């Protein structure tokens, strides 16, 4: 039995396996299938300052080895989360993280402040792939300055572990990661979804209401792996890897590329017990290869 404990900033996890925001609800939805207390952490739905209805249906399209979604951050707002959802889930015996989203820096800050007050939420994941309404809808995460801007502002308002989730829809993700590190992030997680599109050729219409949406699933793993590798070489803070992890072998690849922890997203839709299989599979791998700790394989890719 290898040592799977992992630290991300001040966040201490029993193992490096978390669930990705928007793919695992608030954990409750999966409680019939797995023991939630076995998880390293649960990152709950993207939460915004005000309630959001999200995008019209249809919001999802299947693609080769993946899917596109355009949920549009549907959530009941941070106040509802604090008053109704938090009390329900706060005593789950794992780390509950909140994914914080917004359209303006003020929104991000106000939401982070509300979450900061919650004892049982040790960390947030800041989703900077949202459009910045004050800058023509360009996503915060697509330029170093706007990414650093929102992170610096949230850093002032939030004193627990701050993980910043990076957008892969950029020319140089390592640059953005460094900007975010300099702005005070304790960690970066990547990749968020890639911007994709699906069309119904017979009807000559887009398959999702917003025309484009976020691509995830096994198909994006090669891109996610490459970006994790680039970012891990560029920053000193720990990297959380995600993007198409379907099994333990995929997870190992992310650790080797430099991730200190991982998130499982779309795979939860295909097998609601996949997280447990990945945790057990990581342990088997470490034992089989004679590693005492998960830390021994972080960035252990031999490129010489």
């Amino acid at each position: 039995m290898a040592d799977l404990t992992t630290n991300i900033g001040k966040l201490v996890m029993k193992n490096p396996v978390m669930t990705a925001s928007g793919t695992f609800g608030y954990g409750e939805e999966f409680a019939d299938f797995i023991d939630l207390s076995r998880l390293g952490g649960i990152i709950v739905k993207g939460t915004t300052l005000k309630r959001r209805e999200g995008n019209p249906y249809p919001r999802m399209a299947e693609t080769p080895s993946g899917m596109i979604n355009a949920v549009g951050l549907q959530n009941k707002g941070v106040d509802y989360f604090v008053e109704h959802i938090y009390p329900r889930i706060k005593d789950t015996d794992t780390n509950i993280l909140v994914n914080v989203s917004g359209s303006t820096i003020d929104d991000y800050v106000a939401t982070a402040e509300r979450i900061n007050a919650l004892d049982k939420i040790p960390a947030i994941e800041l989703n900077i792939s949202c459009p910045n309404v004050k800058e023509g809808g360009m996503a915060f995460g697509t330029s170093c300055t706007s990414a650093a801007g929102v992170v610096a502002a949230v850093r002032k308002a939030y004193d627990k572990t701050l993980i910043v989730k990076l957008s892969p829809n950029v020319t140089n993700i390592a640059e953005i990661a460094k900007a975010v590190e300099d702005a005070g992030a304790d960690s970066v997680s990547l990749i968020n979804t890639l911007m994709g599109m699906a069309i119904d050729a017979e009807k000559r219409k887009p398959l999702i209401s917003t025309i484009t949406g976020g691509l995830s699933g096994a198909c994006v793993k090669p891109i996610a792996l490459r970006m994790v590798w680039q970012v891990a070489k560029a920053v000193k803070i720990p990297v959380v890897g995600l993007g198409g992890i379907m099994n333990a072998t995929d997870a190992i690849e992310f650790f080797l590329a430099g991730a200190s922890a991982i998130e499982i997203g779309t795979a939860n839709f295909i097998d609601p017990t996949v997280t447990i299989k990945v945790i057990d599979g990581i342990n088997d791998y470490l034992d089989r290869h004679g590693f005492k700790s998960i830390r021994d394989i972080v960035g252990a890719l031999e490129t010489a």
Partner: protein
Amino acid sequence: MVASPWTHIHSATLQKDMRKYLLDLTVNSNERLSGNYILMKLSSEERLPDMLPGQFAEIRVDGSPTTFLRRPISIHFVDRATNELWFLIQLVGDGTRKLAELKKGDTLNVMLPLGNSFSMPALAQEELLLVGGGVGIAPLLMLGAVLRNLGYQPTFLLGARSKKDLLQLDAFETYGQTFVTTEDASFGEKGFVTNHSILQQKKFDKIYTCGPTPMMKAVAAYAAKNGIDCEVSLENKMACGLGACLCCVTETQEGHKCVCSDGPVFNIKDLKWQI
């Protein structure tokens, strides 16, 4: 005859507490029906979990490069005597074709029971109409069986393009009077279900319907016009089937709701259909 899980149920919200399972079921039979449909019967070593009429399963289709996600399939019937779960499936794409290739003894991985269910009538004596179209008739067989088991005399009204698309008629007739419409008049009355004479002849207290959206909207319009309580079972594109991904939402009076977890059954009062 099914041992109804309903016998002691008076709350339509019971399914909220129903445990969900991830099971490898064994294919007992996989029969190709007339037209482009299969009737698959599966069982398990253990007693199959409790399931309610209107609920569905998310099934894993293996060996299909084009099927990345699970497929939601309505629960057609649960035969407690033989401990068999029935699926009635229309063959549409590569995924369902792979399902059609499954043989006796093969394994199918299913997540179930998912979603809410049709609600039971409020009163002991109600005239109940179950209206189905195409493969949408699937959940109505279990519903009819449960209602009959509770002492009701459900009436089935089933519509199809043509005679060859009419499925499981004998099974339906064991639970209630069954009327049929076909668009090409090859069987029963010609036209759509909403044209059937039974709607003039008999007064119903409640209508349950499942089928193509245009059909359900026509049925809903008829129900609304005649002040009849009406529940529809929706089928949206789903990913997780558990209310986690929020992909399969439909518009309701209270905003977007998940068809997979808040539904698939909705009362037309709660939807925003223009009818």
